[in-house]
């Protein structure tokens, strides 16, 4: 693996999901696009791989963004299975897109069979404030309910693009540090799952406000 060099870097698979037209591919492209590459060719193997440092740790992200194939509903299961962390993207200009990610989340939890799978909720197109349909408070309440951080981003102005990916990385690293406790929840005694959940929540609270205002 080309990414493993000096220090053992972790490799995570992130799946970017959302309804068509919410600009999730813009978000991904912005994030993986090296500015010095004049033209962005998405057909090469490394198009969606990127390396970053999260809290001093080297992380390689393999991002799966199936933009353009939203109509291939049956494929979603396959995509989701590969993911360890999920970026659920909706557009603040579309109420329907928020509802879409709600059902996507259900599907993720069903497929991963894990309530605590790392998720970040992203309200994209934050630059189009005048067309806003989803009030910010709505986003926050969803965030609290799902216990997942909420970011309002704009791929156009490059606001909160890196931040949401980094947050997701942090969650995945944390979960891995817990010894993959959440990986096989079905075989665990009840209290352990509960504890882990509680622990996570405590940490969340300690981290303070997770929702990011623009």
């Amino acid at each position, binding site marked *: 693996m080309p990414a493993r*060099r*000096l220090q053992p870097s972790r490799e995570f698979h992130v799946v970017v999901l959302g309804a068509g*037209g919410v*600009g999730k*591919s*813009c978000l991904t*492209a912005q994030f993986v696009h*090296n*500015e*010095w590459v*004049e*033209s962005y*060719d*998405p*057909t*090469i*193997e490394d198009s969606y791989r990127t*390396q*970053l440092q999260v*809290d*001093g740790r080297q992380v390689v992200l393999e991002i799966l*963004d*199936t*933009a*353009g*194939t939203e*109509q*291939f509903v*049956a*494929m*979603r*299961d*396959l*995509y989701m299975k*590969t993911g360890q962390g999920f970026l659920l993207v909706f557009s603040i200009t579309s109420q329907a897109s928020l509802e879409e990610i*709600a*059902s996507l989340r*259900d*599907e993720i939890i*069903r*497929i991963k*069979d894990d309530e605590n799978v790392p998720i970040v909720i992203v309200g994209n197109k934050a630059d189009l404030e005048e067309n806003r349909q989803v009030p910010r408070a*709505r986003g926050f*309440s969803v965030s*609290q*309910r799902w216990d997942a951080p909420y970011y309002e981003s704009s791929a156009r102005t*490059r606001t909160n*693009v*890196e*931040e949401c990916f*980094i947050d997701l990385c942090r969650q995945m690293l944390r979960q891995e540090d817990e010894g993959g406790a959440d990986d096989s*929840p*079905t*075989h*665990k005694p*009840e209290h352990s799952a*509960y504890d882990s*959940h*509680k622990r996570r*929540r405590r940490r969340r609270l300690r981290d303070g406000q997770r929702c990011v205002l623009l």
Partner: protein
Amino acid sequence: MQDSGSNRPSLQVAPLALNRLNKGGTQQYPYKQSEMTPPQTPSSSQEDLSEDQGSPTFHNFLRAHYPFDNSALDDSNITMPLDRGDILMVHSIHTTGWADGTLLATGSRGWVPTNYCESYEPEEIRGLLHALINFWDLLRSPSVDDRELFSSQEYLRGMIAGIRHLLQRTNCLHKESSTVQRSDLVRRCRKEITSETSSLVRAARRMQELQHGTLDPPQDPNDICDEMVLKACQIVLKGVQLIDTLEEERRNRAPASVRVMDTVTEGSVASSFDLAQSLPLPLNRRLSSFSRPPTRTEPSPQGHRVSSSLSHRVSLAGPSSYTRPQFLVSERLSRSHDAFLSHIGSFIGRLSLQSQSCPELASAIKQCASSGSELLAVVDAVGTHSHSNCAALALARSILCERIHELVHAARDSLVQAASDEDLIMPHGNKELLMSATGCVRSAGDCIAKVRNAIERLGDFELVELESSGLDMDLSILDAAARTRERKQSHVGLSETASVAESTGTTGSRTPGPRHAHTPSLDKPLPEIPAMELSQEANPSPPPSRPESQHSQGSRLNSLPKLSTTLPPAATENSHDHEYLHSTRVDSMIASSAGSSATYLSRDSETSIVSQASTRATTPDHTLVPRPKPSVSELSATASSTLTEEVEEVESRLMEKTYVHELMFNKEGHVTGGSLPALVERLTTHEAAPDTVFLSTFYLTFRLFCTPTKLAETLIDRFDYVGDSPRMSGAVRLRVYNFFKGWLETHWRDETDREALVLILPFAEGRLSHALPAATGRRLVELAKRVSSGTCLVPRLVSSMGKTNTAIAQHIASDTPLPPPITSKTQQNALNAFKAGGYTPSILDIDPLELARQLTIKQMSIFSSIMPEELLAQKWMKNGGVETPHVKAMSSLTTGISNWVACTILYTEEIKKRAAVIKQWIKIANHCYELHNYDSLLAIMCTLQSTTISRLRKTWDLISTRRKDTLKPLQEVSDTSFNYKALRARLHEHVSPCLPFLGMYLTDLSFVEVGNPATRQMTHGSETGDQRASGLTVVNFDKHSLTAKIIGELQRFQIPYRLAEHADMQEWLSVQIDGVRESGKVNVQRENYRKSLALEPRETVPRTTLEPMPTPTPTPTTSRGDFFGWMTRERSQTNTPAPL
């Protein structure tokens, strides 16, 4: 002209801190710690630069601001010395600030410190500089097909357009223009440019002949290539010269208070003193006066002095320059004065160092003396011309002469003393030297003022030959003193060179830089370098062996220097060791850490990889010798003198209107951007038929970047303006006609293109018919009328992208018999019964191979009818796919198949039978795999691997391991990770018939769409904010090329399988698939999962989420207490679809 002076970022030095990564995430980039501040700039203009540090700057061209002498460096074999005014083309820049560049004057390549340089791209010449980069890339790129490239002279167009642009901007396009007429110098520059261009054209013609095998005698193509690159560099240098000359003339036309010199000299003496006292002298004040508009009358004479002297220096760009201004006595005077001051200045700079070695001192003194003697020679020359003012001048001259003598003697004394007791000369012994040096400066200023007075009275005159030195003394006394210590020359030199540069910067000139003085052996008496150089230039001797020198140069160009060092630290000695150590450490760290292009700024990733590799190497590569000046300039001078008729041709080519300068290219020579007129010009070049890929890309995508009306307008305009150049109008006009014809015949889309007919029809009836044979006009009119009547001329299915005739012929040999459908009697009976409305056969009743075939036929018929237009601009995502019926049909069929697979499995209640169904699907998937039907394969596999199916452990247990093993390769192909790596690899080697997964192309197209901007800025490399704004915005054609490439790839597979359709089975298939689709289930996946749970309930004790939700939101508590938990959960969620 006026604004170019202020526009030119003369104070901007190429990247110092290359941390483009200062943006958002502090934790994001792993190379943060490897950033380092490069060694200090020789000038203290650091303040100016510091603000620039954050923003990324990669300059394609640099101009040496200070002379750089690498002879004292360990890496002198990989670094390059610089003279002030040298122009460099940059290939890559290392984070340390070293740039890998090619010196235009000689073509030699090596590492140079960017802090000695400033970015160079005045607006006038920007086009030409950019063209040179393209030209270079094209000729040096291994990925370009030589045969194709050199078969025409198409690749010269960029250069020629660049030259045209330069001449146009400088008002020199026409020989008769006032700018050219006014000045001999300008005329001469212009002539040199055209003659260089004609020799470039001549070389290109030789290349063309070589390609056709008609060149006699044959030459090595590489030689010609090298020659052309060198010629191109020469052209650019001449262009630079032209700009400099114009600049200078502009200054000369400004008020002549420049001539007042007395006070001025005081100023420079004072500053030299400053320099001796405290090294970091604020320089920016003086430098900034460089860019001051000269029309403003400046109260401070110092400003004038600086600006005038600097402009002289600038005018002497490039070692090859030999132009008339050099021979004007006033020029020579100020030049030699500058040289003298710079040497003295650098000498004073050295004195302030704590210690230095004897040979260094000796050579510095020798430089001073030699430049002093040249100055005296000029003074003498003026003296012999003038007789009236002789007394005052003679006095001043003798004082200067005396001072120089004093200095040399003082130096000798201290050298002798040093030789007797210690190796290094200590600063406290330098006082005397300092005194005499400043005395020299003062008296020189005095003398120069007198001489200028004399010249003013006399009028300027030309002075070609110089008498021998005016300073008659034996400088070898210095050598005698120095020789004893020569061997012990320490590497203090490192810090010294920097300080030399620093002090030279204040008063500096490009004329005999310290480098020249270093080259001769210290044992010999000081040669008269400047004088010799001049006489050589005056009588250019033909080079002894031309091809050889060309060749050796070529090899040098190709060899990449390796470097593992840092910039010469400019700081004082005590800090230098530490800094050196530190930076080397950092350097090696960069090399060992995971390098990405972020570490380097480079024009392209390819070079950056190379330079990355080269920096990793720890042993320096010795192939690069520090440039022995090749005789390029002389070569071109002799070569170009006889080519009058070719010059005429170039003149006429320059007159042609063109938009080539508005095109952008990549390394492979493909167009990546351009304005519409430039793209249209590219489509209709006179020399060669347009590149088919380019043409079909254009036809496919032009509606994304312009309206059909605009295109028609531009084409017609092209048709008109080419009429001015009879040389090519015929061919071009025919191509314009052909483009219209192709558009109307095969690429017409009536709904959008109709608006263009109002332009095309009159054009075809009028101008076209007049200019070309009447038949063409008639044909076009006919076509236009037919499309306007709404008939499609050519069946739309035949699209040109990616489908060549050979490809089709190869894979559909129509005589191969169709394989007969495999249906047993019972199977046929079952289907018959189904047809009659009776029993519906199950999946198990059908032969798996035949099922795979029929699936393939069904899918392929839809896939083949996908129109390229459907794939543009993410149309399939908009309006529910109304405009893209085939893409929509394809995706819903694929999804339908997946769901059908799931249903056949889940709705088979009996476990053994269920296992048999799964087995059947594995077989079908295998057959799809063998048929290269990846779309069906993925549809089946995604269901088999879905949690819904894969969780049916008991069912899977009934399937043999052998059978399950056959799934493995299928799983591999359907693996989406690494961007469908496995699938892509397979598709790459496939020829049709093959059915790829449409979704992959859709994703690719989406990302091309969002990942690439619609337009590009023609900034010619530099990315500074204001320049970006001034650049031309052009169509990002690269984006459309990528789109077209992907669509072409898809179309490659739009070729039907040679399989026989089984009507009954097709019908059965449709019913099966549609049956699932129309079952009215809101969410098939959820429904299926529910069914799956019902079939095989969860095995373990399910987890229960006990924790109450922190907010009193009415979320249903998700209970998984029993396996019916999903029911409550699902239901509540479906009832309130958005509890948000």
